[in-house]
């Protein structure tokens, strides 16, 4: 088995970090939209 090149290992780590950061941004954006929609739905029910 050949040891993995440290440069490519770091690239792979950076890629995974970017991937997770992008997912986190999407989830946070989704959460904001969901909270807004829940608030509007609750307000429309209580009217």
């Amino acid at each position, binding site marked *: 088995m050949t040891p993995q090149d440290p440069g490519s290992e770091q690239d792979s780590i950076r890629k995974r*970090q970017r*991937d*997770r950061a992008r997912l986190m941004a999407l989830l946070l954006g989704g959460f904001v939209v969901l909270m807004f929609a829940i608030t509007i*739905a609750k307000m429309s029910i209580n009217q």
Partner: protein
Amino acid sequence: MTSLPLARDRAITASSSDLFALTKPRVMSLVVFTGLCGLLAAPVAIHPVLGFAAVLCIALGAGGAGALNQWYEVDLDSAMKRTANRPLPAGRMSHQTALHFGVGLGVFSVLLMGLATNYLAAAILAISILFYVLVYTVWLKRRTAQNIVIGGAAGAFPPLIGWVAATGEISALPVLLFAIIFLWTPPHFWALSLFVKSDYAKAGVPMLPVVAGVTTTRRHILLYTLPMVAAAVAPWAMGLTGWIYGFAAIALNALFLILALFVLANRATEPARMRPEKRLFAFSILYLFVLFGALVADRWLVA
């Protein structure tokens, strides 16, 4: 750019697909479907946004419970061929990441459920997560062959949660839906455990075929199928559903019973010759999807 110490970075490099795999997406699909059916079968229409939020919470709660289960069972998972490639035993994720992810998902799902629907639904969701993690995973799974009989309750909660999210109260039909999944779990898992017995034995999990043998397990499958059939037909017999559900329940349960009898008649001990068990396992998944689908069709087309 500074260099990254590799040992430390193990903790932060789990990919999003590994995090997704930690939630047991295949189990989650069944949980989401039965939860959605409980919600749609309720006599009270829920606002679509709140209904979506309720199903999302059920999915996130199940995902959190699945993540905590994998966090606790990493030693078992690494010993079994079927689970050895999961993110934790394969070393693609740190234990701490899995723990934080599981607790975070679980707590978030309960809070959001309380906020979007009602506190009773949130409380039942919390109980289902805690039941799966503490009662099934930590307490029962490694101690008794009855692990999935009692632990099956954890997977039976979703239709009840869906119903309560819509109505705010518990009544006879959602309790029967709970009973159906609760009684369906043992034959479903025992059929699987018969043909992956060596995997469980290797990992030291006291599943019924490992502890009591294949003949006893086959007898137990049939024994547990009988009350399941009764629970599945009961909603129609009690007049809680219409003819669509009644017809589906009778047909599906007759087929389940026949397949359970084929399992009982099988004498094979090698997995390669366990076709009746594999057939029952595959059918049991279809059974639940079609039965709950019929419940919703019945509510929307007949009622």
